[in-house]
């Protein structure tokens, strides 16, 4: 089955600093989804990247997909307290199971003053 590994498991960053989270797959990435979860709440969709490699940005968040490395990265520029939460990557495992997302274990982000 698809294995998704996220790194780091957690990180603490000072407000205003940049941060990067990685998501590496053991198998082909057909679609890679980034979500953010705040404690006690559901997941909020951030971005989706497709097989073939691409890069998307929204406000201060940029996500990239490196097809060769089977890896996606999520980069936050000039972090703010609102960026705190758990970031999860989810992968579409392919033609036999479209929409059946498998998720990584998540990265907890803490933003300090």
């Amino acid at each position, binding site marked *: 089955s698809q294995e998704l590994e996220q790194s780091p498991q957690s990180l603490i960053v000072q407000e205003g600093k940049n941060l990067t989270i990685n998501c590496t797959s053991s198998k082909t990435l057909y679609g890679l989804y980034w979500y953010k*979860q705040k404690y006690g709440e*559901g*997941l909020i*969709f951030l971005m989706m990247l497709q097989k*073939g490699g691409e890069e998307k940005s929204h406000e201060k968040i940029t996500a990239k997909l490196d097809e060769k490395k089977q890896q996606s990265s999520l980069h936050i520029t000039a972090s703010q307290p609102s960026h705190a939460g758990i970031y999860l990557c989810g992968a579409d495992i392919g033609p036999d199971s479209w*929409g*059946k997302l*498998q*998720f990584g*274990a998540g990265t907890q982000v803490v933003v300090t003053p």
Partner: protein
Amino acid sequence: DTAVSQTPKYLVTQMGNDKSIKCEQNLGHDTMYWYKQDSKKFLKIMFSYNNKELIINETVPNRFSPKSPDKAHLNLHINSLELGDSAVYFCASSQEIAGQGAYPSYEQYFGPGTRLTVT
């Protein structure tokens, strides 16, 4: 307006009981899902329905039975609850979007979750 809603938000019950969690989406999506998030925050898909038809059924005990009365609702019934069933259960919905190239994308919208505690 809430896009994907779940009830109840919290559920505390004793082992052996039967309970249900309800989910409704007002996005007009064709596909709905149930996920389980354990204490380590690991999120795992359980079921998926497309237009009231079961399309994904992961290795989940038979005590868990999803029911979709219409495409806007997907309920989860759990029989004979066990301690290991304690988790947060998330409902989600999606619509297939024609992606770039040959692959569709399924942007899933999640509900707020139901925290189930079995004592």
